């Protein structure tokens, strides 16, 4: 009967489709996605390349790459197959990256959300704790934690999460501070929605996009941190990891540089893929920044 019934806007594409379109508009992001896919494939097919143990002796020590097709990328000084280690290392890197990121984001979201939503003394206490963590240099804290906890892969993951939750916490807090005074929060509160639902169902979904983008940075950093630990010989020796490979390759860097360079390239490409993905996610999740 009225104009309002008839002039509904044209239906928009489903959110997921719109998201993909915005993501795909960024060429670099697509490259990042391809690289990330390659790392995933490596991790998935590691069992096919080397079914038993990547750390077993596979050939003569220090075979150069492309000389023996049984070990295409050559072997290190203990005769271990570099290709097999590279593929199994992808598993460890992804595992550490994903788990440490999830864990640190979880801690950060809870701390940041509580601090930003309630403010007052809750905010004061939580933020002073966060600052305490931030003032200690990341890597020093990581070394200390690994020294205390031990250097098995689980503890390394936990330790990386503990040193990297502060940035997402601050980010979530800032988002909450601006979102909690928005009218839609008052509107929901006025409907009788409880504080818990306000935090997690109303505000958090709106606060997440920048955090998701930042997660890609944490992921890249976690992989670097794990590699750095392994490089110093503090990695888990029972797993083939890229950091371990570089750490051991260092001993023969002058004569057999490929032992360190091949895993090094793998790390560079993986970290690059995450940061490109982050760029693309930023375009996809925060379209308003670019639209106008």
């Amino acid at each position, binding site marked *: 009967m009225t104009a309002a019934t*008839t002039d*509904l806007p044209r239906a*928009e594409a489903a959110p997921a489709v719109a998201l993909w379109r915005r993501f795909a508009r960024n060429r670099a992001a697509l490259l990042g996605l391809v690289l990330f896919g390659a790392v995933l494939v490596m991790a998935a097919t590691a069992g096919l390349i080397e079914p038993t143990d990547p750390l077993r002796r596979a050939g003569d020590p220090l075979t150069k790459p492309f000389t023996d097709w049984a070990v295409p990328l050559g072997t290190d000084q203990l005769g271990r197959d570099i290709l097999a280690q590279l593929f199994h290392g992808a598993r460890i890197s992804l595992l550490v990256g994903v788990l440490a990121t999830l864990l640190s984001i979880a801690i950060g979201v809870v701390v940041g959300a509580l601090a930003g939503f309630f403010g007052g003394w809750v905010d004061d206490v939580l933020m002073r704790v966060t600052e305490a963590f931030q003032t200690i240099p990341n890597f020093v804290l990581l070394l200390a934690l690994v020294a205390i906890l031990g250097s098995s892969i689980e503890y390394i993951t936990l330790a990386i999460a503990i040193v990297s939750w502060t940035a997402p916490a601050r980010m979530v807090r800032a988002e909450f501070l601006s979102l909690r005074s928005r*009218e839609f929060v008052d509107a929901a509160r006025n*409907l009788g929605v409880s504080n818990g639902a306000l935090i997690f169902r109303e505000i958090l979904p709106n606060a997440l996009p920048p955090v998701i983008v930042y997660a890609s940075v944490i992921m890249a950093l976690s992989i670097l941190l794990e590699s750095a630990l392994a490089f110093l010989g503090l990695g888990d020796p029972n797993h083939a990891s890229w950091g371990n490979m570089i750490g051991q390759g260092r001993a023969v860097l002058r004569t057999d540089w490929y032992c360190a360079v091949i895993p090094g390239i793998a790390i560079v490409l993986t970290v690059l893929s995450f940061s490109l993905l982050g760029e693309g996610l930023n375009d996809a999740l925060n379209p308003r920044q670019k639209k106008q």
Partner: protein
Amino acid sequence: MTDPVLDIRDLKIALPKGSDRPFALDGLNLSVNPGEIVCLVGESGSGKSLTAGAIMRLLPEPHVRVAEGSIRFEGQDLLALSEREMKQIRGDRIAQIFQEPMTALNPQKTVGWQIDEVLRLHTGLGRKARRARVLELLDLVHIPDPRSVYHAYPHQVSGGQRQRVMIAMALACEPKLIIADEPTTALDVTTQLQILKLIRELQEKEGAGILFITHDFGVVAEIADRVVVLSKGEMVEQGTAAEVLNRPKHPYTRALIGAIPALVPPRPRDFRDAPVVLRAEGLVKTFAARGSLISGKRAPVTAVDNLSFTLRRGETLGVVGESGSGKTTVSRIVTRLLESDCGAVEVDGTDLLACSPRELREMRRHIQMVFQDPMASLNPRKRVEDLIAQGPIVHGADPKAARARARELLELVELSPAAATRYPHEFSGGQRQRIGIARALAMEPKVIVADEPVSALDVSVQAQVLKLLADLRDRLDLSVLFVTHDLRVAAQLCDRVIVMQKGRIVETGVTAELFAAPSHPYTQQLLASIPGRGWTPPDLATDAA
């Protein structure tokens, strides 16, 4: 007959591909003579601000650019000038006054410095001469005590004074053309009137041509010599103010003018026998200013001071006042989104302020709110049906039934039920506000608190939403506490009105009586400041169809 200062011919401004229309402005013809005020009127999205951008050559190129036409300023084609030459003209011979003086002024520099900068850029005056000229300008725009304002920062002077400073800046080089882009929209009515008077007065004194951009026909009636009406980029009507205002020809202009709320209050209805649904008693809210170490303690601000009122069933009670009067605080206190320092808010006999958090959540269903900004008050990541059904679900309704009810409510507020699965950003402002109203109705509340529900909307949409609110109120026997700064809107809907100033009620009464014979000087001043109060919109109801 003198030559026009500004002469725009067949101006077309192209929008980027994928916009809702190819041209933001399609064939605008407009001229401004010296000593003339031309009002460019249109609703949001009509392309009126882009016109200002095109004249100043400040369009966000290359996405939005002038596709065709010419803009001649004193016979010179502005579009053919180089950026360098344009810089010479901007601020010197063409000046602009912006809508929001707070954001248009640099918060880090003193007022004096900023006016001084214009003179430094465009004149060869020495430091002393410039200072004298700045003080002279501040005096010209009637700023009391120019010397102290010279050294003040923008946040230290009031909104009206900031706009005066902007005008002083615009006048600094005695421009031939002033573009005023909604210069009074951000101001209170009483300040607005003063600024409009000032612009009129200065324009007569200086003889510049003024292109005045506005959406408000009240303001047009107040100030315009000639009027140009824009609709979606097309010029639909042009003529002298008297012609356009009193004998509009184009259907769009007629619709716009017809949508202006008349200053005629509804016939008083009798509510003496109706039961009281909402009673506020002795509300006080003081905002303690948290001083810093350096600045020391600042004085606390009393936003609401000992406020009491009653609202009876079926009645609409208006709370009117200017910004800072505490009217919004009142709406937040009665819904307990803000804690009152003392007093009581009784909804159907239960004191809301004494409720425990659990009881409060239960009580909230009885008092619902319609918010000012329909975009900000709808969670952008929720579908419309979830937004509307959220309240009932929280209070234990079956989710499926609640969503079905949400669709019915959408029909009630005259939206298609197909809207249910959409997200808020897909709707226009008026449609969003309908969703907000549906959300409030979903709880079947006893009282609806509407906080400036139409002030973010265009006039024609405003009229529709007001009509909807009045319809719903009568059909569902709603009791409404209606907070607004706009006396025209209050006159449309409210049975009784409370006038607030600085947290206190200065006058209260039945709308018709209060508008006819205001007793408090502040109310009298408010009523006298309504833009265009001397102009009664022609009765166009007969041919609105």
